[in-house]
């Protein structure tokens, strides 16, 4: 993962600050950095979003394609994640350097979305055992400024919210042969319900306390962090510990509590901004990468 090298003195300065609930950039321990969200930034996808969280810059595109349902779940569609770590983010990603991180992030998201309740996969089914929608979620890391997981999860949720899947009808004739017909109105499409799509909150243990939304410098001071996925209702859907250090059970419970609290307010803020953007309709001036 992208990292910075800090001297012992710098680390000490950060750790001591956090002890006093004072972070280098002036935030409190449970404060997120300022985030920018814009959806519908890539026109040839079914849904897309770009999220900037401090210096972390993420672009997510969702493409809906027709495929065959998985054998064990014949009446459901499915999601595929792919994370591309651009060498723009850090020279370490050059060549195949970003692959390991990409796979790790993708696997984390498979786990986060493995919960039945996160997204209604049944609505992606066109006709059981034969056709379903496969949502390819492609994540592009443009810049790494710490707290990748949280930023990506926000971007994924925003992109899924923005996703419009064309409506298709299955026509069946007397002989039982099926024909799929595509609606000719581009507005005629299905939207996904993202109410229960979780967001990831990463809590980094620094000294005796933990912080959310750690910057790169703070990440360098943390030996262990806890990654939890929280739905808007505050339910935890998955949890993962990263980093080489250890955490005692006491602090894990504490961190879970914080994560749930912060996660809920994060969902509320995100949903509010998405609804606001949606209400502007097509007249909205797109910012894209010019902003």
């Amino acid at each position: 993962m992208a990292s910075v090298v800090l001297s012992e003195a710098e680390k000490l300065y950060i750790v001591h600050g956090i002890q006093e609930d004072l972070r280098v950039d002036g935030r409190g321990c449970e404060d997120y950095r300022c985030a920018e969200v814009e959806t519908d930034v890539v026109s040839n996808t079914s849904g897309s979003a770009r999220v900037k969280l401090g210096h972390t810059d993420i672009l997510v595109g969702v493409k809906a394609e027709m495929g065959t349902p998985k054998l064990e779940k014949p009446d459901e569609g499915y999601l595929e994640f792919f994370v591309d770590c651009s060498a723009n983010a850090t020279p370490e990603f050059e060549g195949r350097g970003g692959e390991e991180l990409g796979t790790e992030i993708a696997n984390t998201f498979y786990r986060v979305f493995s919960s039945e309740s996160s997204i209604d996969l049944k609505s992606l089914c066109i006709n059981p055992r034969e056709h379903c929608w496969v949502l390819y979620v492609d994540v592009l890391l443009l810049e790494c400024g710490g707290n990748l997981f949280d930023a990506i999860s926000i971007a994924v949720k925003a992109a899924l919210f923005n996703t419009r899947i064309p409506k298709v009808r299955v026509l069946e004739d007397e002989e039982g042969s099926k024909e799929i017909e595509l609606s000719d109105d581009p507005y005629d499409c299905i939207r996904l319900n993202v109410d229960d799509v979780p967001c990831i909150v990463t809590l980094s243990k620094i000294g005796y306390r933990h912080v959310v939304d750690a910057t790169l410098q703070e990440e360098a001071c943390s030996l262990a962090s806890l990654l939890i996925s929280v739905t808007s209702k505050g339910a935890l859907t998955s949890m993962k510990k990263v980093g080489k250090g250890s955490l005692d059970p006491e602090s894990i419970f504490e961190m879970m509590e914080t994560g749930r609290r912060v996660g809920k307010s994060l969902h509320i803020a995100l949903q509010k901004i998405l609804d606001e953007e949606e209400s502007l309709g097509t007249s909205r001036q797109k910012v894209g990468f010019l902003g």
Partner: protein
Amino acid sequence: MLTSRTFLKRTRAGAVVKVVREHYLREDIPCGAAACRLCPPRPAGAGRGLEAQPSGAASSLCPGPHYLLPDTNLLLHQIDILEDPVIKNVIVLQTVLQEVRNRSAPVYKRIRDVIQNPEKHFYSFTNEHHRETYIQQEQGESSNDRNDRAIRVAVKWYSEHLKKIEDEEKIQVIFLTNDRTNKEKALEEGITAYTCEEYIKSLIANPDLVDRLACVSDEGKEIESGKIIFPEHIPLSKLQQGIKSGVYLQGTYRASRDNYLEATVWVHGDAEENKEIIIQGLKHLNRAVHEDIVAVELLAKDEWVALSSVILQDDGQNEDDIENEEEKENILKTSVNKDMLRPTGKVVGIIKRNWRPFCGMLSKSQIKEARRHLFTPADRRIPRIRIETRQADTLEGQRIIVAIDGWPRNSRYPNGHFVKNLGSAGDKETETEVLLLEHDVPHQPFSQGVLSFLPKMPWSITEQVGVHIADVSHFIRPGNALDEESAKRGTTVYLCEKRIDMVPELLSSNLCSLRSNVDRLAFSCIWEMNHKAEILKTRFTKSIINSKASLTYAEAQMRIDSTTMNDDITTSLRGLNKLAKILKKKRIDNGALTLSSPEVRFHMDSETHDPIDLQTKELKETNSMVEEFMLLANVSVAQKIYEEFPEFALLRKHPAPPPSNYDILVKAAKSKNLEIKTDSAKALAESLDKAESPEFPYLNTLLRILTTRCMMQAVYFCSGMDNDFHHYGLASPIYTHFTSPIRRYADIIVHRLLAVAIGADSTYPELTDKHKLADMCKNLNYRHKMAQYAQRASVAFHTQLFFKSKGIVNEDAYILFVRKNAVVVLIPKYGLEGTVFFEEKGKPTPRLDYNNEVPSLTVEDTTLHVFDKVKVNIMLDASNIQHQKIRMVLVEPKIVENDVPANLSTEISSKNEPEKKKKKLQK
């Protein structure tokens, strides 16, 4: 300004793809009005645009100056009206143009031509890229609705824009639409909108235009009146599924020439069985028109029928005569042999209409002042068409063109509208035009673009040396307008007194004509031969020829025959003749067929160009001599190009006919106690040679004529797309056309291939693309077929003219075919063929007894056999100017109890019977 258009589409593999196109909007698109100072000037050469003072027909609805703006459907259906010179100053929107292009390529081409015509002042406005007229598809709006709205927005913009022009007289924009809801919406938005009918009827000065309105009936209206005659057509999507699953068969509908209640459908694809399906009866034919692509459902085996030998013509004047039809249908159903039954089906839907404008004449309604009349096309395979016209009196007796608009379920005949008047029937110019149009022969004068590729005159040779076939490919370079035009024409069409050239005259009769004593470019095929006419060496080369003498066949023949002449030219002619005779003998020994067909020539009056005498063509020895060497050159070239380009040599083949084709010939010969063997070409040729009867010398010729009817058509093909190359008639394993590049396009391609093969010219991509070559062969075969038909039609027409002046004559004739209710006779003197009917309206039907086995027909007490010699009385029947025909009256044998000439009349249809006329064996 930039916006983007997004749409979804399905790929062939079944995936759904979202496509995003960038779409730029501009502000500098001119409105096209000449008086407009607000718009930037139009670029030079962009046509003349709309007039400042719109001229054109005065309308009582809108007396002021106005521009017209039609919507898509109007343009598609009423293109005939828009093409009229009276209609000027029309704005054609890009939206409309694009929709038209997607829906009908021919109409698109026509509207493009109109827009290009500076006299018409049509202006195509790029509304989709204009900032103020571009709209986006809204939620819940279908793309059709969006386009309708885009058109209305453009009309609105125009009317507001034109108001800003500072001119004393404001120009209005009139929106023309036949769509009721669209018109209502337009009126709500304050747009002046009329239906096409309203507007055209308001053009008081031009009442004739009303006739040309296409009658497009609303779906709803259809059901109210009249009873439903036809079953409903199944929608296309269902048809496609049905075809996929094999319930329906897709094929080309071919109406019968002789019987309007019968048709066959040629099923597409390679299936061996059910290749040809019989359709019988009005309901089963279900509104299909000749050449349509239709879907057919097979009937149960016990309902299968055989092709009836009845000749029926649709002559009912009353269109609601359905009972009568059923009666006629019963005539078709006669008991026949079990093994004669063929697959029979019914038309369930139309996949693609192949309607074109049809030539023909008006059958005026008997009701006075009636506006609805029936139109009888010249081609008998096309049903009669109902049209509405107020000028029936003027159109009567004229050759006119009519287009079909639709065929509702409750109508006995299709509805159509009048397009163009060609001139009075029987007039030579008109009739020639008719037969050219009917046979789809492109006969417009060569355009400037084509002529620009001709060399500048005076022309001289640059540097080259030679002999033989004019090198046309030197002048016609691949891909230019001249090449494209000649490729489209495919062949020169010879009519009795007119020639429709494939290439401009400068080439055909000067630069590519090997005149004597001038240098001409040539492509030569040179052999070294021994005295047994065996080829020792073949060489091909480009050359320059300076012909020593140009002789006609007759002149050459005279030189060979005269004993006094012994100059160089004459002796070499004799040598050639000797070799040619050996070549011919070899060919015949191989099983080549010599078949005769009566070739008719007219002696024309030099002043009036009317035919004054008929003559059957006489063949001289020199004809045969030239032919032998031409054949040899063609075979040699075919071998060479096939050897060099096994995948894309353009060759010609003549498939062997299926044995069943010979049934009629064998039966006919048997009745004269002769045996015809048909197992091989050689056996056939030999048995034809032996088939002679001392008391009936003409029998052999008749048998050969019958044999030609059994043959298949010879066709061009690409060697990479086929594996049977055999030429049956010439008994050659490989053959092509090389010797007449001036009049056949196939020869030009062969020349190019040969030139590449010997390294004399460079190749180009299309030449080595076997699919392109196969497509080209398809067009060439079509053009050749049509040219042949046109030629025969022309002969038939001139025969008519001839008999018009000749009056009534008695001639000997032979019976060629015997049908159920008629016999077909041939008059050798004129090479003329006709059908004798034994039934006539208003007369008691004579007792007819048809024997399929012999075959023979017994009328009252007289039995008629194939090859019987009869005497007929020929005259021109002009009583019905609608269809002038030659009537023949049987004089001998006399049929008892019947008054000749009233009952036994033979008729020859003069124009519409190309197929039944001699099918000449193609080389």
